[in-house]
């Protein structure tokens, strides 16, 4: 490592150039401290003068001597309680020190290639991670002594989009926020709702976050799964979390008496106050949409629906709590905060159920080796050299290893549909690239069926011919990643094939027949936007396993370096956000006062475009409702479209 001790010199270090100090100032970032002891200076290039005065706000370790980057990382780890070494990246370093100890036979440090390969290997030991949790629980005791709020480093105010304002009376306002954790404490808000456990929504939450805002009150409001995840990942003390069950009505604020004891309670009252009901969002596990009901001192209650991230299906549209807002319903949603991720006519992907059943059928066809899969996977199967030359008797191989790409959480539904179709094949949660808590996270879903098929053996603990792995999305991103995962784990001794599933709505290529649905491309656009929308609503597209194969063709070029009869990556038009068509259903068939997009709002152009689309949908809704009420208008016949067409 001696080569690294030499630091890059600046031109201005040399006397001949030093006179031009005015020039140097414009290069402030490359100024090097004039120090003799080069040894100490490996990392620190600036901010040395702070020295020992800098300490970690959580554990008080002196941080003055390490670089800003490392300080930030240290504090972040303290806050999340994850002070463990990253399993792979540091191993070579610790190994390289080992030769000094005489007890083991001299081991060479791992080469770069070996380190790279180790990153793909599922580790067996979970022990280290378990210990970490115990340690962090004892560390929590110290925080209980805190009697005043900690300062927050966050700089920005919560944007208005994330603040929900309710009115007990015209002069008395009460506000809460949804998915706003990355901002400085708000003087009025004492209840922060979290819709689901994805980083773009919980971003900003740390162990310390609650302590900056409250001493000991309930402050984070979420579903019980999300609550468990917050505790597993961030060590958030449950005393700060108010967890709620779906489909139950809670009162969270009383307008006459103020805060409710313990943060809230189940209630069917109609007393003035703020009530909330959680409805499953059909997004990731634990994701919900919030139905807020504010009962003022005088007058009718006001309803707001905050959708977080969600995807509707027929069940959800007909949810008992939402039918009252249907066109013929008795109530109206004053505001809907809408997940507009795919608010663009080109994102017209098939229904989630269709994609799930198609891929489940395809995997089962592969296992049963149907003619159709032979056509696309090749008629023959690659054997392994080791089965001819190994001394040990060849093992019976399993048919197929199915890799399902997931984010930290989400996309599990694809795996579930395959498991069910195949009659409960085992599922394994890969721990590569994770903090080692991925299995705990899956267990936190407390999903009865999933728990029954979960295994800690990557090769599956049963005779089932298929094993499903949940893997990071990166692994199913390219064939190279997929083969690395398969080969470096030596799965070729146990499986004949490996199929990777890459679920994402973005990759979907519209089939030719679907193009007619984009208003710009169709000659009928002269008929008017309403007709286009009706056509969109009425056209329900089909999606089968053939479509999956058609969208993922074999090409000699793509598979030049890979064996296509062994390895396959299939992209699926699977999304956990609403498609354009579903957005349309949602806006047209619910009585909504104001639709507020929550995604893609920063770009004025897309904001304008979304507003136009919403306006045209609202226009259709008006026509549909007036049609129902009066039943006189003749042209209204063409408006024959209803929720049942979904």
């Amino acid at each position, binding site marked *: 490592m001696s080569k690294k001790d030499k630091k890059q010199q600046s031109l201005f270090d040399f006397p001949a150039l030093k006179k031009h100090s005015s020039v140097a100032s414009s290069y402030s970032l490359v100024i090097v401290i004039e120090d003799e002891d080069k040894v100490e200076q490996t990392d620190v290039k600036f901010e040395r003068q702070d020295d020992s005065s800098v300490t970690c706000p959580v554990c008080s370790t002196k941080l003055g001597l390490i670089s800003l980057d490392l300080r930030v990382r240290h504090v972040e780890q303290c806050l999340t309680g994850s002070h463990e070494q990253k399993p792979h990246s540091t191993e070579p370093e610790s190994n390289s020190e080992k030769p000094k100890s005489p007890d083991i036979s001299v081991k060479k440090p791992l080469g770069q290639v*070996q380190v790279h390969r180790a990153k793909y290997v599922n580790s067996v030991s979970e022990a280290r991670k378990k210990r970490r949790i115990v340690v962090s629980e004892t560390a929590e005791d110290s925080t209980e002594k805190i009697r005043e709020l900690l300062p927050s480093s966050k700089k920005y105010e919560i944007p208005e989009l994330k603040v929900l304002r309710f009115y007990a009376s015209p002069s008395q306002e009460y506000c809460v926020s949804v998915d706003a954790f990355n901002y400085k404490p708000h003087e009025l808000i004492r209840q922060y709702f979290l819709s689901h456990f994805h980083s773009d929504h919980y971003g900003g939450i740390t162990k310390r976050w609650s302590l900056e805002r409250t001493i000991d009150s309930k402050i984070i409001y979420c579903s019980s799964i999300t609550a468990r995840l917050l505790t597993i990942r961030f060590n958030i003390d449950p005393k700060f979390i108010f967890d709620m069950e779906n489909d139950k009505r809670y009162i969270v604020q009383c307008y006459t008496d103020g805060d409710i004891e313990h943060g809230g309670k189940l209630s069917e009252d109609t007393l003035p106050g703020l009530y909330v009901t959680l409805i499953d969002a059909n997004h990731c596990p634990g994701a919900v949409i919030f139905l807020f009901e504010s009962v003022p001192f005088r007058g009718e209650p006001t309803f707001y629906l905050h959708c977080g991230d969600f995807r509707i299906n027929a069940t959800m549209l007909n949810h008992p709590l939402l039918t009252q807002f249907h066109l013929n319903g008795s109530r109206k949603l004053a505001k809907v905060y809408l997940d507009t991720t795919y608010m663009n006519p080109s994102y017209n992907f098939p229904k989630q159920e269709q994609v799930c059943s198609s891929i489940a059928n395809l995997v089962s066809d592969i296992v049963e080796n149907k003619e159709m899969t032979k056509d696309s996977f090749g008629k023959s199967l690659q054997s392994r050299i080791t089965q001819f030359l*190994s001394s040990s008797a060849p093992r019976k191989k399993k048919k197929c290893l199915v890799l399902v790409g997931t984010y930290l959480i989400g996309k599990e539904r694809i795996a579930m549909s395959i498991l069910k179709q195949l009659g409960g094949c085992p599922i394994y949660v890969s721990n590569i690239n994770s903090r080692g808590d991925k299995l705990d996270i899956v267990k936190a879903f407390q999903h009865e069926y999933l728990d029954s098929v979960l295994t800690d053996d990557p090769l599956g603990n049963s005779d089932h011919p298929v094993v499903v792995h949940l893997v990071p999305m990166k692994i199913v991103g390219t064939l190279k990643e997929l083969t690395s995962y398969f080969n470096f784990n030596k799965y070729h001794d146990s499986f004949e094939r490996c199929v990777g599933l890459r679920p994402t709505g973005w990759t979907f290529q519209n089939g030719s027949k679907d193009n007619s649905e984009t208003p710009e491309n169709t000659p009928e656009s002269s008929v008017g936007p309403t007709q286009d929308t009706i056509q969109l609503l009425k056209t329900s597209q089909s999606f089968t396993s053939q479509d999956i194969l058609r969208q993922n063709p074999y090409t*000699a070029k793509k598979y030049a370096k890979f064996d*296509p009869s062994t390895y396959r990556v299939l992209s699926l038009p699977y999304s956990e956000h609403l498609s354009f068509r579903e957005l349309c259903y949602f806006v047209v068939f619910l009585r909504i006062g104001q639709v507020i997009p929550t995604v893609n709002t920063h770009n004025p152009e897309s904001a304008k475009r979304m507003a136009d689309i919403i306006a045209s949908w609202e226009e259709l809704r008006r026509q549909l409702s007036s049609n129902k009420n009066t039943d006189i208008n003749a042209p209204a016949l063409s408006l024959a479209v209803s929720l049942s067409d979904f």
Partner: protein
Amino acid sequence: MLEGKFDEASLLKKIVESIKDCVKLCNFNCTEHGITVQAVDDSRVLLVSLLVGLSAFSEYRCDRDITLGIDLDSFSKIIKCGNNEDYLTLLAEDSPDNVMTIFEDKKKERVSEYSLKLMDIDSEFLRIDDMEYESVINMPSTEFSKIVRDLKNLSESLNITVTKDLVKFSAEGESGTGSVVLKPYTDMERPEESVSVNLENAVDLTFGLKYLNDIIRATALSSTITIKLADKTPALFEYKLDAGGYLRFYLAPKFDEDD
């Protein structure tokens, strides 16, 4: 102590280029009889077996058996630093941490030295018994290379059938089919251009073209290739080194799933 000197750097250069794409990491086993390598590719379909015999070296000395765990990508970069005609010497201590590669220009007084860090590479040694092959084909290596490159564009698999006095290579793909038929042929002037087929039993085997494409990277090592085939058995593709030794590839066939 290992000290092996090649009269020309080009031989080792060609060997490393031949195998570095299918096996990234491998052990060079040095004994008093020369240097051997046995390695399996990551997907465990292709086995590489190399012998560089004593006669390939102009000077060779190896007192104790030494294993050199080498990252071929890095080694390849070093080997490329020498000129083809340079003397090339490999130097390593007993239980070494690194291996030295020394190039000496034959005319000019120019010596370059490179040291490569070694690794511990675990590999299970597969015993290759002398297998009984049902047909043996000898043909020009460039001819075989051309067949593989041409048919690779059509399909992912290459079918090889050998019947009486005839070898047929064929591929079938979405866009069409193709085949090349060879019959025995003797060229007295240039024996390396000859094709011979020795047949005991007819064979019909299918191989992944991706792996055959890895194999033909060794074409530069020898003007001829020997292909040995038997039903339901890995095929052997052998390039003999003129200087002494061989580079062999054992390739596992593809089977119909119903078998």
